């Protein structure tokens, strides 16, 4: 053989061996054929996690993460003690994080706000793969940006949205046009009232308290009642008054349920034309295979590009964490793992935010698609957060008063304007008393 041919043969051999080693290397390292993140697959990694409690953490996330990455050792720091102490949550939470310095934090919206204020969270945009944030549903992204004061200091793996569900069969039965995403609350009320004097409810509400519907409408329309400083309450406005009238007309025409449903939920049992509910109702209706055609549309609002968005659980990284990269990799895993998504969906009926786990919903033909494309009605979250930080005394005194006044308004014992004026003055008295303390 000529020397060049021998050289070529040897090179081929070497190439062959290299190829074999390369292939076997891949196979021997990741026999499970699932793509592992090289940043967290080797060595023991210890991460501390702030969660409700250890069991829930493992059940919701930890066990699934460990199935892929058994080398990650979690230490769970329970946030339960915060709610068992007599100190305000704000203080206990800040102290707990300060003392324990968890790497990864799972937070409620309110908890996130507290830690955002004390600058305890690591900005995530640079840490996470850009696709994580880019592919978030529009409303979720809006809300995350709002909670991060423009930055992204947390992400959400699941989200919820409140919407309007309607029973198509009943609308057809009475020849009433079905609701669509362009309704105002006045339109909504008119639609519900078309079911007067039928044996069908126009609207089924789980709460039965007219003031709940009243406040919901107002927040959806961009109104507020508590100012930013939480020093003043305003309800004596044209906006609120108009809505009080709207609620009144619905109750006076008897189209809203006044008592608890005998069957648990009049909408599900087919005796209510509409209901306002969280997205979990969608899964319920599907799995129960209800015997009527139904639909879901965005909640009425003054701005139809916006819908209520709720983030039950936010995931963040501690600003002081030395394991930021590992924590970020875990967040990316949580966002992409179909087993975690399936578990979340089964236990909570929340919608997944990540692209990988929500492909169905992102089809334009999917009834819930609007929940992925519309913006967040941030006013609603803002008002809720403002209220959350109020002392229990205020909440437990003000809202029963509001309920009582709404009842008076509906019964015609007082006109809307006057009723709201009384509520407003009652609320302001409470606020002044609080300030004095």
């Amino acid at each position: 053989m000529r020397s060049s041919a021998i050289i070529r043969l040897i090179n081929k051999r070497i190439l062959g061996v290299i190829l074999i080693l390369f292939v076997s290397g891949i196979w021997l390292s990741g026999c499970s054929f699932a793509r592992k993140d090289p940043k967290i697959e080797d060595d023991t990694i210890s991460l501390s996690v702030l969660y409700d409690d250890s069991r829930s953490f493992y059940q919701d996330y930890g066990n699934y993460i460990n199935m892929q990455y058994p080398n990650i050792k979690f230490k769970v720091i329970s946030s339960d003690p915060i709610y068992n102490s007599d100190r305000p949550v704000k203080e206990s939470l800040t102290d707990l994080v300060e003392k324990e310095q968890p790497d990864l934090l799972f937070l409620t919206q309110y908890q996130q706000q507290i830690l955002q204020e004390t600058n305890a969270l690591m900005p995530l945009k640079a840490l996470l793969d850009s696709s994580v944030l880019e592919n978030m549903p529009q409303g979720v992204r809006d809300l995350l940006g709002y909670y991060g004061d423009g930055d992204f200091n947390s992400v959400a793996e699941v989200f919820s949205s409140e919407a309007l569900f309607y029973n198509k069969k009943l609308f057809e039965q009475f020849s009433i046009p079905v609701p669509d995403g362009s309704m105002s609350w006045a339109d909504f009320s008119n639609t519900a009232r078309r079911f007067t004097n039928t044996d069908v409810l126009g609207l089924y509400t789980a709460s039965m308290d007219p003031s709940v519907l009243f406040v919901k409408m107002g927040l959806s329309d961009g109104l507020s009642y508590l100012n930013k400083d939480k020093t003043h309450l305003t309800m004596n406005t044209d906006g609120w008054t108009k809505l009080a009238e709207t609620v009144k007309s619905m109750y006076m025409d008897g189209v809203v349920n006044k008592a608890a449903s005998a069957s648990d939920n009049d909408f599900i049992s087919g005796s209510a034309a509409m209901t306002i509910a969280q997205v979990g109702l969608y899964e319920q209706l599907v799995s129960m295979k209800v015997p009527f055609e139904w639909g879901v549309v965005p909640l009425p609002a003054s701005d139809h590009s916006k819908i209520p968005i709720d983030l039950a659980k936010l995931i963040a990284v501690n600003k002081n964490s030395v394991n930021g990269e590992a924590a970020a990799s875990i967040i990316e895993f949580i966002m992409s793992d179909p087993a975690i998504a399936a578990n979340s969906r089964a236990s909570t009926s929340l919608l997944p935010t990540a692209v990988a786990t929500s492909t169905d919903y992102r089809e334009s033909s999917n009834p819930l698609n609007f929940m992925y494309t519309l913006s967040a009605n941030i006013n609603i979250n803002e008002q809720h957060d403002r209220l959350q930080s109020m002392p229990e005394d205020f909440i437990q005194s003000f809202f029963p008063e509001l309920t009582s006044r709404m009842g008076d308004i509906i019964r015609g014992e007082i006109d809307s304007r006057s009723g709201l004026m009384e509520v407003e003055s009652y609320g302001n008295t409470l606020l002044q008393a609080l300030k004095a303390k």
Partner: protein
Amino acid sequence: MKLKLVMLALIVCLILISCSSRDGGDDFEKDKSYKLKVMAADEQSFMTNYGNYVKARFPNVEFQVIPINQIFGDEDLQESLLQLVAAEQPDVFVGMPFFMIRMLQDSNGLVSLSNVIGKDTLSEIHPGVKQLMEHLGEGEIYSIPTSFISQVLFYNKRVFAEQGITLPIESTNWQEFLQLIRRFVNTDSLGLYLSYSDPSALLTQIGQSEGLAYISPQSHKVTLNTDSWANIAGMVKELYREGVINDWDSADSSDLFLQGKAAIMVGDSSYYTQLEAANLPFEWGVLPLPGADQTKIEIQPEGLVAINSKSQHEAEAVRFIRFLLSDQMADIINHTTNLLPSALSFSYNTDANHPLHFLYTRDADTFITENEERIFSMSGDFQKYMAETMKRMVLDEVGLREGLQLIEEFGNNQTNK
């Protein structure tokens, strides 16, 4: 050239073999679709505790869950159960209570797992657990618990030091244990704290760990008025009278051991996890429960799995059970239930220094299990009567022998009904 190809083929084969044996050659294969019918309490708890993890590992496995909670209110549970099984023909039973497993076992409804689960898997299960299941299956293993409960003693080192009482280094019999407890009389600390303080339960527990039973196996005749039982009853009475054990109707229901006010506590592995997470300001340790035979512990089987003898998918059912007994699932089970996994791969067993390690090296006290079953089969009225009478004995409202006699008679009248 040929040699190179042969070597290539050999290397590829070796890779394939090592890869597949790492996964476990008996795992669900990736390119097939599997469907398993599962009978469990309800779908949600099955999926949350087991199903979701199987699917995370093997997305090609589908479950159909037949919930048994639908028959819980029925008059004749056995009939309803057997009818449901006949109608639905599940492949596996998961997390069903043992008395239901026994009903299926007795009607030849279960596959003998000893024969099908494989030597490898069997060798990976806690020998005491295996022994217990063989006993309950009358020589064959018809169901395997994925986890178990066993109680231990927790002791507060600081309380012992403060009272100048020597820490026990090992457990002995109940006589010595109770004498130790009584050394805490007239101190600020309780000798023994029980989260459920009931003198009749304590009497039973002490008796059975010393090999005594008051219900005879065949006739279920109650025999309590004996010297041995009177001796134990006397010891229990003294504990309560001297105030070294917490009262049964104490107004304070908070955990006195956690508060550092008790020398010793009886609890299980979930209590261990609780203590660890509590970051207590005192050092604490673990000891086996007292008992005449320290080579045995009581094992309460949990998360039982079994295979329907009429299943057409026995091979898949076996793979499923093997996965539930794997080291991955062991950690998962412990993290979510705080119970002890039956798998020997679990860290409490592999780490010889773990305080609960001894729970993996002891045999099952089948006597206690049998006795518990017999007690369970007695009427609620009897158990209530026994509890009330024991309390009266402690309070000196009735003499020891007299009280035991009364309980005996009540129990035997009940059986005769």
